[in-house]
């Protein structure tokens, strides 16, 4: 089910033509039943696309015999469950088998690893915990909405698809910027890739760091601002490429980034910053007491908004884009499919802008918070 949406687009073009032909032939006899199936399929596909995965699958298909074939490679699963457990994700057989390590059994359910028995039984506590259902790990017996598995979840440090992609981006960034830095040893003029990257570095410095933090204090924040700007931008952009993986639509990733911003803000805050939080100058004493908890809450809300903004923008972009691509398969006629194709194309362009814009906003707001933390007393 999991292949990147760009190759899906390519397939879509073929489908488009095929759909045009078939629409002429069948005049919609199959559409009713087919469309319903397709809708669930597309929904599943989108949900799946947005999730992390324990394998690095590039492409999957179903053979004529109804057998699922996957093209890709397994990744290591690292669990902490009374000791370190490391095994290959191929043991899960794409969620169709129970993995056994050192006498413990683990199974995938809704893309999460649970500790199970040898049969892969998943126990469910009802929403209020009064009723208990059982289902086999592959969800064949029953579908219980709002139910949470009560099975133990081991601490999961697996190298998932997203982690691999983060590593790849980090490595790529390191190599590119290292080579760019090396060129400066020979001459102070930018050469090669530096010609493109230097204006961006200067943009971060002159348009983001200096105006928000100030001429004298921006230097110690530059490393973080530059790293986060390029990291978010590159990972957003690569998430749009055919083989790319969507990383910034994971709340864990944006949470980690926002947390670093929060920690830097908190630990570099000067006396004036804390004074403005706990004892706001220039307002009456009762107001000071009321403002203190609000301001304190504000310090958490600021990075929280950073986290949600990046996560929501990228997730929404991908959901909308993929829904429109999905529409092509539902319409399957000569006007709807090209229309959704054009729409998807336009949205892809928009997503390119959003990728850069979100990186800019994240960096910009981080710089703004740092600027507040080191602002000198003006009163």
């Amino acid at each position: 089910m999991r292949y990147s949406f760009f190759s899906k687009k390519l397939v879509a073009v073929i489908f488009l033509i095929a759909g045009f032909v078939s629409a002429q032939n069948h005049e919609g006899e199959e559409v009713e039943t087919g469309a319903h199936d397709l809708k669930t399929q597309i929904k599943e596909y989108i949900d799946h696309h947005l999730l992390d995965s324990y394998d690095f699958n590039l492409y999957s298909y179903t053979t004529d015999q109804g057998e699922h074939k996957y093209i890709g490679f397994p990744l290591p699963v690292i669990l902490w469950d009374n000791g370190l457990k490391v095994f290959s994700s191929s043991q899960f057989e794409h969620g169709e088998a129970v993995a056994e390590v050192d006498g413990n059994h683990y199974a995938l359910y809704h893309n999460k690893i649970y500790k199970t028995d040898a049969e892969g039984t998943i126990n469910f506590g009802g929403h209020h915990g009064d009723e208990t259902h059982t289902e086999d790990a592959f969800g064949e017996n029953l579908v219980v909405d709002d139910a949470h598995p009560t099975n133990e979840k081991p601490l999961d440090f697996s190298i998932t698809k997203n982690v691999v992609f983060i590593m790849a981006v980090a490595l790529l960034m390191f190599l590119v910027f290292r080579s760019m830095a090396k060129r400066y040893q020979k001459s102070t003029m930018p050469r090669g890739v530096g010609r493109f990257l230097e204006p961006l570095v200067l943009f971060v410095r002159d348009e983001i760091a200096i105006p928000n933090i100030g001429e004298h204090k921006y230097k110690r924040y530059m490393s973080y601002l530059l790293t986060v700007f390029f990291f978010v931008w590159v990972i957003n952009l690569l998430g749009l490429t055919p083989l790319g993986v969507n990383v910034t639509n994971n709340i864990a990733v944006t949470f980690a980034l926002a947390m670093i911003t929060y920690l830097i803000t908190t630990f570099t805050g000067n006396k004036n910053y804390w004074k403005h939080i706990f004892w706001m100058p220039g307002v009456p004493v009762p107001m000071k007491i009321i403002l203190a908890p609000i301001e304190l809450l504000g310090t958490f809300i600021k990075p929280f908004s950073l986290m949600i903004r990046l996560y929501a923008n990228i997730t929404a972009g991908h959901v909308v884009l993929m829904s429109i691509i999905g529409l092509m398969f539902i319409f399957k006629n000569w006007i709807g499919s090209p229309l959704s194709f054009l729409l998807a194309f336009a949205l892809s362009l928009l997503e390119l802008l959003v990728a850069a814009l979100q990186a800019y906003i994240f960096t910009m707001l981080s710089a703004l918070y740092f600027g507040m933390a080191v602002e000198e007393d003006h009163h």
Partner: protein
Amino acid sequence: MEKLIEQFSFGLFFWQLLLFVALLFLLRKYAWKPILGAVEKREEGIKGALEAAEAAKKEMQNVTADSERLLKEARAERDVLLKEARDIKANIIAEAKEQAQVEGDKMIKQAQATIESEKKAAVADIKAQVANLSVEIAEKVIKQELSDKGKQEKLVEDMLGDIKLN
């Protein structure tokens, strides 16, 4: 919100934090510091060069102003010198003229004096000659008188005629 918390993967968070912080420190050491340092150095170099150019321009302006001033002074001096020279020339000419006048007058006076004295001498000479001639004529007349009265008269007349020519 609940879905978000459920979706939260601690493993991914852990790896993201670890990798990002590692990337941050690696890039800081191997990329950002050298890049920003080089850029700053270059900017300072450009700033320095611009300032130097500005200073050189100012210096140039000063030099030009100086030379212009000198030129002006030199011109003024030349004018003064020329005027002086002209004055001197005029003076010399005037003086020379005056002297020449004086000298000329003197010479003319001398010449007039000489002429006067020559004239006096000549008149004296003429007087002496006339006296001599008169004596000779008187001698000859007396001699003619003595031989022929007619002839004597004629002689006197001829003689007188000769005298007139002088």
